[in-house]
């Protein structure tokens, strides 16, 4: 069975601090895909990144970076120099067709 665990339910940090959101996944598939989505207070789901299971290279996009470690089945997301606009619920997800979402981490960036 496929499963995504986001152990951090809620995190609060002060603006400009770095913050890492954890994601651990379970799957028996050898080929799979991992995603992060952002859900701001307005409610829409915004795609952030997609990673396939064969590509363990870390990725950086501006203030966002992702660390994929197959050995620990983790796909963590770091926001550097956080801003108030980063406040949202962040979902990690796993796909082998349909997307299985984690329960999300609610991130509060305090001014």
């Amino acid at each position: 069975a496929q499963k995504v665990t986001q152990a951090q339910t809620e995190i609060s940090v002060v603006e400009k601090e770095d913050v890492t959101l954890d994601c651990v996944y379970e799957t028996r598939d050898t080929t799979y895909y991992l995603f992060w989505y952002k859900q701001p207070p307005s409610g829409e789901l915004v795609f952030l990144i997609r990673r396939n299971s064969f590509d363990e290279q870390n990725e950086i996009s501006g203030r966002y970076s992702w660390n994929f470690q197959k050995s620990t089945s983790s796909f963590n997301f770091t926001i550097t120099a956080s801003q108030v606009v980063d406040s949202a619920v962040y979902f990690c997800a796993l796909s082998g067709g349909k997307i299985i979402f984690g329960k999300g981490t609610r991130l509060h960036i305090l001014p």
Partner: protein
Amino acid sequence: EPEVTQTPSHQVTQMGQEVILRCVPISNHLYFYWYRQILGQKVEFLVSFYNNEISEKSEIFDDQFSVERPDGSNFTLKIRSTKLEDSAMYFCASSERENYEQYFGPGTRLTVT
């Protein structure tokens, strides 16, 4: 930039009534999905649709649910006899290929009274 659109943004219906939620996926996408999110909870997969047929469905997607692509642009979710527990935000999504990133619409908030 192309986007997924959904109508209506909010639908209020009485228990037992039928509702149809509408979605227009991104035009060159081939895979279509419905998800739901009960308030404050995680996003749950309902169904995926490809080549005019259901490719996968969850245990939530029982006989009261159906999907259709009635023309070349719309993708609909019908709930035949709504229950109170169907109250949720329903998201449509589409992707260019299987396992590619799915782009989500803004959602339809369904309230069953």
